């Protein structure tokens, strides 16, 4: 009893600015409810409630079967998908910004997105020359694209990381340059693949690079969940070390941080987390960059605020973007990456202009 109380106290005291976090969480819950009710199929709030209550065994009236299917098998996993991917992108972005000690860093900088894109492009396009697509399909089934994306993303990150590491020391400046070089190289490979692609392959590749959550079902959600949860926990446990890292690598060392181990852990965890999400949903830009920024502007850079905040706000942003993506052109859908960039970029510019005096980078 006493021990339990103590643990709760510690957990509460280690979170910063709980008021903001609660606020974001509240908006997120509200948005999830709105999101459940909105979509191409019209379902009233009462019906949503009916289906949800039924699913936990509290149903009064028997809900419409079609509605219940759309809610439970399409919208709900999709929202869960948005939560997972949004939070992992934003948290990975926040952590990488700290590792690079540059608020403009983004998960794409470690090559995970472009590496994933190469994996997918190879599977979609080059695979057909060598029968690779057929092989991948036979082996991984509908998982061939996510698996290729995940492996490609991880491979690119590992190359970037290896290039920047010498004698166990990882140089962040080299990592930045290696990331840019690997991204350029991957861009060239993707260019080659789209040059060789036939129309259908090109279409698939383009759609993948624009991102979509339409691949969500309970299987994909359950597969993604462990990656995201383990990643969030690992990064959260390093929140304080990341604070210290912002002072500088030497300072972090003086304060007892094994800087190289920290960098390795953060980069690989972020790559695993983002890679898994990218594999399923394609490239979704801007969330990882913008979300941590907004939070820092609101309440400072303390990671025990920024990390949980990013998880919540990233989830919120992606749920919102997906809501727009699947309703604005219903019954068709707009790629979600288009929405995040379309909404994110102007907002980001507005933030930059508003804080022009504060940021001198």
């Amino acid at each position, binding site marked *: 009893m006493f021990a339990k109380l103590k643990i709760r106290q510690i957990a509460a005291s280690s979170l910063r600015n709980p008021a903001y976090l609660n606020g974001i969480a509240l908006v997120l819950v509200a948005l999830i409810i709105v999101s459940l009710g909105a979509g191409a*199929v019209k379902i009233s709030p009462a019906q949503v409630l009916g289906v949800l209550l039924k699913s936990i065994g509290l149903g009064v009236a028997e809900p419409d079967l079609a509605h219940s299917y759309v809610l439970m098998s399409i919208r709900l996993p999709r929202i869960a998908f948005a939560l997972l991917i949004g939070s992992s992108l934003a948290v990975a972005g926040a952590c990488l910004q700290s590792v690079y000690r540059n608020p403009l860093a983004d998960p794409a900088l470690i090559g995970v997105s472009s590496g994933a894109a190469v994996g997918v492009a190879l599977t979609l396009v080059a695979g057909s020359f060598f029968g690779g697509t057929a092989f991948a399909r036979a082996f991984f089934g509908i998982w061939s694209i996510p698996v290729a994306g995940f492996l490609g993303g991880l491979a690119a990150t590992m190359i970037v990381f290896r290039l920047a590491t010498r004698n166990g020391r990882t140089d962040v400046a080299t990592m930045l340059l290696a990331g840019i070089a690997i991204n350029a190289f991957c861009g060239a490979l993707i260019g080659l693949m789209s040059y060789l692609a036939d129309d259908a392959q090109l279409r698939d590749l383009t759609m993948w690079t624009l991102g979509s959550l*339409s*691949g969500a079902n*309970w299987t994909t959600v359950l597969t993604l969940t462990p990656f995201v949860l383990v990643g969030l926990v690992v990064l959260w446990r390093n929140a304080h070390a990341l604070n210290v890292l912002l002072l500088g690598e030497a300072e972090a060392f003086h304060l007892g941080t094994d800087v190289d181990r920290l960098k390795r852990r953060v980069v690989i965890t972020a790559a695993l987390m983002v890679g898994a999400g990218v594999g399923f949903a394609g490239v979704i830009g801007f969330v990882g960059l913008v979300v941590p920024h907004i939070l820092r502007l609101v309440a400072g850079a303390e990671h025990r605020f920024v990390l949980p905040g990013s998880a919540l706000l990233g989830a919120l942003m992606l749920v919102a973007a997906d809501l727009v993506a699947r309703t604005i052109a219903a*019954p068709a859908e707009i790629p979600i990456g288009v929405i995040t960039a379309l909404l994110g970029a102007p907002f980001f510019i507005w933030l930059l202009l508003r804080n022009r005096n504060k940021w001198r980078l």
Partner: protein
Amino acid sequence: MQVKTIVTWMFLLIVLGSVACERPVEHENKDSKMVSEHVAVDVEKPQRIVALGGPITEIVYALGAGEEVVGADITSTYPESVTALPRVGMFRSIAAEGVLSLTPTMVLGIEGVGPDTSVEQIRAAGIDVEIFDEPQTFEQAKQRVELVAKAIGRTKEAESVIETMRSEYDQAIAVAGKSSVQPRVLFLYARGANTLLVGGKNTTAETMITLAGGLNAVDFEGFKPLSPEGLIAAKPDVLLMAEKGVESLGVDAIWQLNGLDQTPAGRNRRLIAIDDAKLLGMGPRFGSALIEVTTQLHEPKDAGNAVGER
């Protein structure tokens, strides 16, 4: 060390996750198939059809079931009236909920309809989803019409559609048979503003060229980007293009392509432009498309400017 532990854990979890989830999904599929067979038999009531892919939509309309179509994808542009219907995006990237919101009783799709997850979800909702293989030959094109007709319970209507296709086809073959020459034809496909692709072996374009009594000017597999040297080496007598491609490039720009003036086609300004969906769809207009190609190939009315003709 710690990183390795994390990686190991994640892999363990993903394996467990996918194993745990594999079975219920298959089960769902079997269920939905049973449901779908049930629905397919029940053809008395008017269907609510979502048609995905231009040729499929054309077939459904040709079979007289246009009234029953409640939605289509953006590649469905013929007949004109289909464009007034709700659009569910491109057939390769459909959203399950978007399709379901049209409360269809049946979804008919061209080969390549996806993503797979969306198709699965639509099936799992108890909707019959029929995907038809892309035909490679005229026989298969006719078979596809029959299969679609069977799916929507209009086998009688299929007979007259196929009859028209056959008579037009025979007419075209007759024209081709009369000709003593076998012109070299180069199929150009405009993708984007600056990319022109050439249709090689095992493409629908080649099928049309061969049936029309022409010879594909290139012999590589699939589509490849056009190069000036490749163009000269192919020595085409005639260019074959989709109308939309000609419109987007402009006729003048086509004649100014590097190397084209070194070929018979360029010197004689011979270009056949045909509506994309008609030429490449292998749908009900297969025969009439073939007549167009054959006629323009062997009996050009105006060799200087074939573009104006429709």
